[in-house]
């Protein structure tokens, strides 16, 4: 990302959240983004994940400039290249663990049987092979986050973006999730994690600090 600015309209007032941020994330890196609340960490992650367009500046993903891509192309990019993990898991409450994990495959146009097979394999990998048919309400916090990680891995993405992935978990469960992230990193997956936690940041190879919308 080069010279990224992001403005939001709040009533009649325009608020600039990011002021010319330059960030490079290299393939296979484990990067943590830290900073106080309101520093622009989540906004930065939104732009990195092609969820939001910058107001100014340029962003290249795998060398490809994203400014020119239309909305559908950005959606396809998210479906095929990027996985998301959220603090509150964001699982579909009415769906089983298998269907939750298979959700990105639905939008990638994968056939039903293959979707289910791949989702089962991923859940097995994150240690939930015995909880396939359970709904989020029937799972513990750690198990829910594992389902969310399985979902993020569904399309074998190059990059996983996580927003406070251990924010809602106890210490023991957090450690399990961080071990899982470490495993993914060792397998060559690029990880960008927004966090307040020093423990999480300690697992990363590099820490980017943001303060008031600027790299600190």
């Amino acid at each position: 990302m080069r010279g990224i600015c992001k403005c939001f309209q709040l009533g009649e007032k325009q608020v600039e959240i990011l002021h010319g941020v330059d960030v490079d994330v290299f393939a296979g890196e484990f990067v943590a983004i830290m900073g106080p609340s309101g520093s622009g960490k989540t906004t930065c992650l939104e732009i990195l994940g092609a969820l939001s367009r910058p107001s100014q500046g340029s962003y290249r993903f795998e060398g490809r400039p994203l400014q020119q891509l239309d909305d559908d192309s950005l959606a396809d990019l998210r479906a095929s290249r990027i996985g998301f993990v959220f603090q509150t898991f964001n699982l579909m409450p009415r769906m089983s663990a298998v269907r939750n994990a298979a959700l990105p495959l639905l939008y990638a146009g994968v056939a039903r049987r293959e979707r289910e097979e791949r989702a089962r394999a991923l859940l097995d990998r994150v240690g939930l092979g015995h909880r396939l048919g359970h709904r989020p309400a029937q799972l513990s916090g750690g198990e829910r986050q594992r389902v969310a990680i399985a979902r993020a891995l569904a399309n074998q993405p190059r990059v996983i973006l996580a927003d406070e992935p251990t924010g809602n978990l106890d210490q023991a469960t957090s450690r399990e999730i961080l071990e899982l992230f470490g495993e993914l990193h060792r397998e060559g997956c690029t990880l960008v994690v927004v966090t307040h936690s020093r423990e999480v940041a300690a697992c990363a190879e590099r820490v980017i600090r943001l303060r008031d919308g600027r790299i600190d």
Partner: protein
Amino acid sequence: MGRSFQRRLRMLVPLAEDGLAELRAAWRSHALTLIGLVWGSAAVVLLLSLGAGFTQFLDLGVKKTGDRWTMVDNRYTTAEWGGRRPGRRVELSLDDLERIRAGVPSALRAAGEILEAASVETEDRTRATIVSAGSPETRGIRNHALRRGRYYDDSDERSGRRVAVIGSDLEAILFADGESLGRSLQIDGVPFEVIGVLAPKGFQLMTDMDLHDREVFIPLAAGVRLFRSRRSIDHVYVEPRRIDEGERMEGEIRAALWPLHHLHPEESEAIFFESVPKIMRPVRNVFLALQALLGFVGTVTLAIAGVSVANLMIAIVGARRRELAMRRACGARRSDLLLQLMVETLVIVGLGGAAGVALALIVAALLTVAPLPPALPAPRVSASVLLTTLAVLAAVGLVAGVAPARIAARVDPAAALRVS
């Protein structure tokens, strides 16, 4: 294009399953909307079926009585002509019948008829009824179907044989054992042999209403002799070769009869025509308008339920912004969310509609077996009624789904992060 279509196709079933899961989980908040849909779709089916029932009733009623004939009837003159004053009664005769048969090329067949009230007796029973003395062609023109025996023919007519065909109800009244064929009955004291029993017609339009099943039908020649006071016939039924030749046929009848009866060329009362196709045209239009009105009322009822569905779906989109944003983050395009909301709306409308149609089928079946008065037809649930209801339901579902689907499609994917 093909790949994109295949992708969408693969989404349909899971999205419909999601819709059903939502419905199951939140059925209480959906209940009122579903009741509205059940009521609305039942109203569409029942009102359309009622309209179709009326139209079928009309068609069947006309078919029973014969749907092509024109009746030539007589009254008094209204204009002076050839020194003859107005108010003169014109009477149709057997000669007029022969003139029509010989001099009207557009006519396929013609039958004279005398109608008289008479007393009909068997060995132990008596009944006052209507006797129809008609040419053998009456059977074809007026669609008389036989239940048993035979109808009188040209030979009976030529020989003036005293034979009778009776209505099915009259047979039951006069013959306690239900066997009338070959037996004798007396009309005004004159014996006739029963040679046939007509199939029941029930209520019919145009003529006789439901008297047909209690009438006696005898050859015209026998009728002329029976009712000696009669020198004329009451009317002549004429059937055109083609149904659209009615006007031309009337012109030819005028040309054949007017000069012989010394009628003013513009006279339209002394001898006049009652044509079934001509009478039925405006009646059919009224029935079609009634059917359209009933369909419209049903559609409006369902459309009101559709508004309720749209409101419900808008509320659902509001409550599920986070989920929709999450789907966008997982790679859903705007059009995928549009499709999802349309599918979910159609699932709700489809379920409510199916229940409404089922309810309407039950009500229609009950009305069919209920003892309704003869002039009140039962609703007729036809394939076209069901297809029209399906089309109305689909239209309501699509229109109701558009607004919430568009709102869903505008959900910002970044909201998945912000709300988290």
